[in-house]
């Protein structure tokens, strides 16, 4: 009927603006960056071109691949650490704490998001320095000084500053939403406490956990502050490589190559993770 063909202006009002906005200010920049990776730089000026030289140059360099694998490794490592460190705390908050206490804990964990990440990083810098707060404290009990800055340790501490609160929040919320009777049922059927975690709690919170881990990975993978200020750029990560590349002589096309490689990696990881997260258990059609 003709009524169905009529344009629904009301519906379009809510749909169109965001499409236009995101196309212009999100898809536009990302696609342009892809185009940019084929541009040339002559005398510190970018010129439009369609050459593969930037790709060839970056992808054949050892330092790019070193950075690539290092970034992948350190981001995965810190994601794993964040998830593991968060788990006992989240478990306690989800199953042992009262509702009020849990709400307060989640509220407190949101606070770090309202503080400047840079300021927190700088604070770690002072805490972890060789003559810093932590080493001074350890000194009183006759330990140290330990070298914590300008190392993988420093980088991971920085990443955790960013990801740990998120990991705890997401894990807590996920586990708090598990139907408690399922756990009681498992216990009632003779499942030991640890086995209950493994066989009941984790499978039930799979989706939430994978999403949390994915976010931890994404945040660490793209952060340049922690590896730069706390890791001392020892083995520069890809974000530092991007910064270095743009800093030195307008080499934006090459930075774009690095950025595209990062995005491809992230998409692969994200799609795999989401496929895993939403994969139905066996036997369910």
């Amino acid at each position: 009927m003709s009524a169905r063909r009529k344009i629904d202006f009301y519906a379009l009002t809510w749909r169109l603006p965001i499409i236009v906005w995101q196309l212009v200010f999100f898809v536009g920049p990302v696609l342009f960056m892809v185009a940019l990776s084929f541009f040339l730089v002559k005398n510190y000026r970018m010129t439009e071109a369609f050459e593969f030289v930037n790709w060839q140059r970056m992808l054949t360099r050892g330092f790019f691949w070193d950075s690539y694998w290092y970034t992948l490794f350190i981001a995965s490592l810190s994601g794993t650490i964040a998830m593991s460190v968060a788990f006992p705390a989240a478990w306690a908050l989800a199953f042992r704490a009262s509702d009020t206490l849990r709400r307060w804990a989640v509220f407190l964990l949101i606070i770090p998001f309202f503080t400047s990440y840079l300021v927190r990083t700088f604070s770690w810098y002072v805490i972890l320095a060789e003559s810093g707060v932590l080493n001074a404290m350890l000194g009183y009990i006759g330990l140290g000084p330990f070298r914590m800055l300008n190392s993988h340790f420093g980088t991971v501490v920085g990443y955790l500053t960013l990801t740990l609160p998120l990991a705890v929040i997401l894990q807590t919320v996920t586990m708090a939403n598990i139907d408690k009777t399922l756990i009681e049922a498992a216990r009632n059927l003779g499942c030991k406490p640890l086995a209950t975690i493994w066989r009941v709690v984790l499978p039930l919170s799979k989706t939430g956990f994978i999403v949390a881990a994915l976010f931890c990975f994404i945040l660490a993978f793209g952060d340049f502050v922690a590896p730069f200020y706390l890791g001392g750029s020892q083995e520069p990560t890809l974000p530092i490589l991007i910064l270095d590349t743009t800093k030195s002589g307008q080499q934006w096309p090459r930075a774009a190559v690095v950025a595209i490689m990062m995005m491809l990696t992230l998409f692969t990881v994200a799609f795999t993770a989401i496929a895993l997260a939403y994969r139905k258990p066996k036997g369910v059609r």
Partner: protein
Amino acid sequence: MQGRGLNIALTLYVGLVFVFIFSPIVFSLIFSFNSQRFPTIPLGGFSTEWYVKILNDPDVWQAVRNSVIVSSSTAAIATVLGFCTAYSDFRYNFRFKGPYLALILLPPTIPLIIMALAMLAWLSRLGLSGQLWSIILAHSVLTAPFAMAIIRLRLHQMDPDLEAAAWNLGGSEWQAMRHVIVPFCAPAIVSSLCLTAAVSFDEFAVAWFVSGLNKTVPIVILEIVQGNIDPQVNAIGTFVFLTSMTLVILAQLIFISRQIKSHS
């Protein structure tokens, strides 16, 4: 049973996690009142020097002004965009809905540094870079998904008959929007405004790239960290933290008082 021991251990563990999360915040506060330029242990004397310094620095004030403009505009735009998408998703099923949602939800999965690079390249090509509103454009793209998520969650709590009930009582679609959907989402809209403003207020990577000569607060912080490092960073950080927490708590209080009123 070992329940009691386990409880103590867990309490201690949770405490440790919180210590890790909060120590940088607490130490930043302490350092901001410490007289040493390069804070070390033992601490120097108590000093408000760094606060005096930032309060007297017109650049800091300009940055605060810029940040307020940027974050409030960002919050407004992102919340409108997020609301539109959340409502479209809630109300309609249409072809290409998947890509449509991806369009708004994807930006947070792309590292800021990449967004920064892409934004600057693109905006400068369009001749839109180096302005205060370049940051606003970029930030609204980055924060809209958060607005969308919050408002979508709220709509999820809404009885889907509510909107139809408004039509049924003689309200047009626009009237239903104005008198039902928007009031119902009001708490989420305020939360979204607060959260997107807070995210924007703290974002430095994209802002630093696209801002040209305009500085926002995090850019000033970044420049101090990169340059003449001193505890002004902590002073600004504390200042910003108190401001944003006040805003959040204020928003909460307004809600609680409204709730109490409507329950009496």
